[in-house]
């Protein structure tokens, strides 16, 4: 059977992987070792390694464009993937990936991890990503005939697919109140509640393009909500930073230079240290977190907690990268879910009406203008939405509307 011309497959049947073998050396855990150790029903890890070695030689990807594969009743959650060297590596000729909605905050029990592992051993390559960039558990590589069985075993184990395509993408959140003293709202619960509220929109793409939601419970933004989510919910507080002066003194005694390290790094210079007491002019504080990060035992966010709602972040494609910008400067923690659901509906209505195919909400706002977007969703403009008022006089005055008023 084996043709000597194949060359890449020696007597033991395993592809030679000289370039990748080099990446098993060195102190950082090796993904090559992971691929080599993976066992799964489809037995595809070995051919994956062989194809990857070929890419390392050729310096191009050997994956073809995705195809339409999925499970009955869902329009996403499975990424179709086909090899362009499938004859050489038949076990990855079809190598589809499932996105599985991660548990909030990426918490697991050992039992849950084993359940997922066992399902993926029965039905796939035995390779995963923990986790994908949006936050999903990624089950990497299987064939079409395994998709439905994998899906059913997942749902019976209490897991479900994540989003792909022009849909709500799997919402994600930071560790929040589960293990962080800085959490200004219950990010894990909010993320879960939103995910459950939008199961249909998550599984059945019906939007102009992808819509990502991320919940970060404080301005440190451990899930990069401001850079990566169309809708960014970032925790903050309204009242005064809580100070424990004894602990401030302890930090000073332990070597922190309160004036230089803390006060001088404050972006609004709202802090003073007289050698004994730290005072904060909270009226000027922008809740940046620097002083709290530096002295977590001495300083804490206030108690009137909630979040800033921001909109529009995305990566460069198509019209350039955007960071999210402020839409609502503060929503109290206990009003977040209801406020967001109402707001999201108004945003989607506007997007449905005016968005073009594959136009992210941030790009639509750039195209029509933030003011027109605010009109469209029924929000009044407030100065917190901008870094500065316009510096050009090209104003679209609206005399007709003003006369009406």
């Amino acid at each position, binding site marked *: 059977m084996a043709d000597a011309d194949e060359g890449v497959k020696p007597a033991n049947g395993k592809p030679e992987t000289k370039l990748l073998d080099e990446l098993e050396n060195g102190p*950082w855990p090796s993904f090559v070792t992971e691929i080599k150790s993976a066992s799964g029903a489809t037995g595809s890890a070995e051919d994956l390694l062989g194809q*990857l070695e070929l890419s390392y030689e050729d*310096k191009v990807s050997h994956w073809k464009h995705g195809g339409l594969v999925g499970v009955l009743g869902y329009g996403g959650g499975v990424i179709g993937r086909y090899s362009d060297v499938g004859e050489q590596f038949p076990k990855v000729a079809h190598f589809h990936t499932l996105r599985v909605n991660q548990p909030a905050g990426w918490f697991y029990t050992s039992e849950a991890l084993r359940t997922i592992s066992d399902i993926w051993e029965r039905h796939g390559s035995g390779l995963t*990503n923990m986790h994908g960039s949006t936050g999903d558990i990624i089950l990497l590589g299987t064939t079409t005939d395994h998709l439905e069985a994998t899906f059913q075993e997942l749902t019976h184990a*209490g897991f479900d697919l994540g989003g792909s395509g022009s849909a709500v993408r799997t919402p994600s959140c930071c560790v929040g109140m589960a*293990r962080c003293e800085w959490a200004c709202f219950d990010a894990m619960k909010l993320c879960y509640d939103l995910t459950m509220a939008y199961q249909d929109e998550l599984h059945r793409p019906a939007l102009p393009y992808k819509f990502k939601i991320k919940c970060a419970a404080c301005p440190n933004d451990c899930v990069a909500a401001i*850079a990566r989510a169309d809708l960014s919910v970032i925790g903050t507080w309204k009242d005064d930073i809580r100070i424990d002066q004894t602990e401030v003194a302890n930090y000073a005694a332990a070597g922190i230079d309160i004036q230089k*390290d803390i006060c001088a790094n404050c972006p609004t210079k709202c802090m003073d240290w007289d050698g004994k007491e730290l005072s904060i002019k909270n009226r000027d504080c922008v809740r940046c977190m620097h002083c709290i990060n530096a002295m977590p035992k001495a300083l804490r966010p206030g108690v009137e907690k909630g979040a800033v709602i921001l909109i529009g972040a995305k*990566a460069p494609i198509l019209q350039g990268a955007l960071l999210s910008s402020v839409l609502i400067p503060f929503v109290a923690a206990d009003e977040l879910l209801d406020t967001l659901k109402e707001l999201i509906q108004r945003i989607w209505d506007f997007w449905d009406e005016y968005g073009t195919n594959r136009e992210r909400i941030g790009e639509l706002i750039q195209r029509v203008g933030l003011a027109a977007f605010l009109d469209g969703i029924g929000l009044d403009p407030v100065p917190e939405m901008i870094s500065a008022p316009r510096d050009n006089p090209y104003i679209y005055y609206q005399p007709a509307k003003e006369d009406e008023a």
Partner: protein
Amino acid sequence: MTTTPLEPRLTDVGPPRYDKFLPPIVLKNYGAWKYHETLAPGVLCHVAESGDRLYTVRAGTPRLLSIQTLRKYADLADKYCGGYLRFTSRNNVEFLLVDPALIEPLKQELAALGIPVGGTNNAISNIVHTQGWVHCHAAATDASGLVKSMMDTLIDHFTHEDLPAKLRIAVACCLNMCGAVHCSDIAILGVHRRPPKVQSELLSKACEVPTLVASCPTGAIRPVPGVGGKQSVEVLEEECMYCGNCFSVCPAMRMADAENDGLSIWVGGKVSNARSAPRFSRLAIPFLPNNPPRWPEVVEAVVKIVDVYRGEARKYERVGEWIDRIGWPRFFELTGFEFTRYHIDDFKHAGMSFARSTHIRY
């Protein structure tokens, strides 16, 4: 009644409830944590209002994990953590302990398994990255190999908190940036440098021409009659900046080019609001060659940035804040990176990045 365990067919069950996998100490102290301390690099202690203490041991992973390794993590969680663990937004795994006496034995077992502990505070945390040649059709480079090569060299900055501030590195294999590298202290971005090669035969079968034309940010794609009167497109090559979005919507616009694809390096972005506002990374090196399996040119450039930053930045200064203080000319001088015409923006709003003052450091 059916005997098959998979009846009824379940859909839209959603993820596990948010509190389903939380350890008892977390359920008890949920929302009532008071402060935390760092006991050692990679080892945190969170103290609750109740006085309870939760210990976290953070370890690096390659993100691409076999189920065998996941089971290994599960075994460790059973042995040391009552069966509880979590992952972080930067692909680290965190073991959650209530008994501090188990921290050292866990660390020793992790060390024996070759799993590094660290990534906290003023350290380099794990590198966020994309699929690369492992699983993506659009990738201009591999991601896992780049990350492995960099972390092998930078690992001491993962296991030690020896930098002025936290340092966040990310890799994306193309401009789609599913790794959202655009707000990282150091970003490595795979780039194409040649226009797509139009495959007319495939195009007429597989692509919608209007969608394809609309996919181009610079309007460089025009419909033309193809072979046999079928629809095709042409690319105005001087207007193409190789973003690859046309390939995303149409497989007949092949971008991959072994000779000309490679890497660019960007610096100074951040997402945290601490001190300065979140911001994008800026171009440091427009092109380095794709050189698997170890990408020595990329590793060398990243190490250079880390070394210079470590030597020059003040305590708490992120890379971007450090460059704010010293200025870009000094950044290029200190790193020895060449400043080229490619560093000057020429896309929309480019003028915003021109120097519009006489604030010049001599």
